[in-house]
């Protein structure tokens, strides 16, 4: 099957690279069924990294601010500052979008996983603003 998929002549036994392809495909399929789980090895490294947070800040300003307000101050929906979000929840919503009542958010899955985690990183940084302690 693998050879047919790769457009190569049929062989009796799958090669090692073909086995890896099958394994990875099955893994991806399993993860897709499970939900918007990431293939980024360690998202926490992105979330805590100032360079990634800064990249997420710019991406937010260019793509998210016109609905969520500048710096997540709120716009169509309540503000994103000083909230207590779970990383996976944010990643899932950014990836798949959401619809609730009159509100909707389109999916942003055209961004690579790293870029989506950078947005998560920035959003989590909004929970640590000085005004959140007041």
């Amino acid at each position, binding site marked *: 099957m693998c050879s047919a998929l790769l457009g190569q002549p049929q062989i009796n036994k799958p090669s090692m690279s073909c086995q890896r392809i099958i394994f990875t495909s099955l893994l991806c399929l399993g993860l897709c069924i499970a939900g918007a789980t990431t293939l980024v090895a360690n998202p926490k490294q992105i979330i805590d990294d100032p360079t990634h947070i800064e990249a997420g800040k710019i991406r937010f300003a260019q793509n998210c601010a016109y609905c969520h307000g500048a710096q997540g*101050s709120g716009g169509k929906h309540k503000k994103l500052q000083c909230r207590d979000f779970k990383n996976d929840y944010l990643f899932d919503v950014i990836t798949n979008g959401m619809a609730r009542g*009159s509100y909707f958010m*389109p999916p942003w899955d055209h961004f690579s996983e790293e870029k989506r985690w950078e947005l998560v990183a920035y959003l989590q940084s909004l929970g640590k603003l000085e005004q959140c302690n007041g």
Partner: protein
Amino acid sequence: MFKKFCTLGAALLVGVMALSPIVATADDGSDWPRYHRLDNGWRYSPLGQINTDTVKNLKVAWIHQPGDIQHGLQATPIILDGIVYYVGANNNVFAVNGASGETIWHYQPELDPIVRRVFYQAATRGVTVGHGMVYLGTLDGRFIALDQKTGKVVWSRQITNLEECYGCLFSSPPQLAGNVLYGGTTGGDQPQRGKVYAVNALTGEPAWTFDTISDDPKSWPGDTGEVGGGGAWLPGQYDEKRDSIIIGTSNAAPDFFGSIREGDNKYTASLVSLDAPTGNVKWYHQEVPHDVWDYDSSYETVTVDHNGREVMAHLNKGGFVTVLDKADGSVVNVWPLSETYNWVESIDPKTGKLIGRNDPVEGKEMTLCPYLLGVRSWNHGAYSPKTGLWYTNAMEVCNRIIAAPQNHEEVGLAGLYLGVSVLEAVDPPNSKASARLDARDPVTGDVKWSIDYPIPGLSSVLATGGGLVFNGDVHGKVYAYNAENGNELWSFNTGSGIRSGIVSYSANGKQYLLVPSGFGSHAPGFMATAFPDVVGLPGGAALIAFALD
């Protein structure tokens, strides 16, 4: 022989239908046959049963709910012979008995799943009725014609491909110009090349396409036009006398980063007159050459008589009203509706030439006024021939921006190609963000009266022969004012903000005020830092008819 006879017969029928009037020949005010009621852009109902004396007795007559509240209810209904035609969220089209509110028929197309991935989701500004059909521009890029009596599909034509043309969907009803049906798409803020499309209204066969992006390399160097934005996302207006379509085009993209598209970027930010049968340009006036502020020219024109000349008053998002001769597009006057503009020093009132541009500079933080929603959002004004006044919402808000390059290939289907690294609505320099409803002379801009609003009104205004002006706010209150002096005479809380067209019609001799209530708008996202109370307003969707006891 029989085939030739049938072909000839069909051709004759089409010809006769083309000559048939689209609207009732006697205008007694009972109908609201076109988007602005008539193509003069007045949004004026001549009915007077509801007037300055009787308006206090208005009561709810009926309510119709489309069921889907996603992004509210943003349509201007059409009413013909006592039947209301309107569209709710996600292209749900209804024909409703205008006296009782009962559904006559309901239609919803099977929408392509791509509609869940775009920026301009769910909302449409109305349908168009003519030639025995109800016309819909869909969220997935089609024109659909429904039988006016039954709501069954007569024809359907795929116009755009949203996978290839980001944002190229119809958020407004296509309009009729004789037997041409035409409309432009959204997408001025997205990396695409916007167009106005026309089909034969009777058959759906393609008629012509007007490219709002000129192919002159001096206007758009290299391939910048391919992602130059443009389009025309609000309804055009038919000049039947001249068989012309007057339509305003979108801004150029990337909105604030113009150095990559040096040139005048024709025909963005322009008012254009197109020959209705062919789509050829008869004249154009580019209000904002090389637009770098997101100042669309998409809004309505208001035709009035001025010293024996037919002129049009036209508001650009940048806050200036240009008054043009309807015959040839020559400039008659230019006056500022904005009180805090700083993107230019002024505009020559005789030529429309910009004087003293204040362009964004890459990497430099600047405060530019008005902001990207403009001195007014797309919600239309209204004109009363009785008072000679134009009634319009207005707001004074600025942008804090830093212009920055943006890779258009990274802009997704729902992304905007704004060319900024910072974008925030802020107070004007030396004053606070504010909003109001103005009554002004449309040719000179002289103010007759003005009412402050705490949050900008996002509803389209209605003026009536009963001496009234109706406006709605974002909380859902609809107000009736005395058209002469702005005194508030009546109000009603509809429960969710008004982002639609308030209209009036009569059925069985009774006048109705029709208010599509239900908040949904992209505006809060852009304006919340200047008007924090706009955050989290409740959604809804209900078409509410009022009448006197």
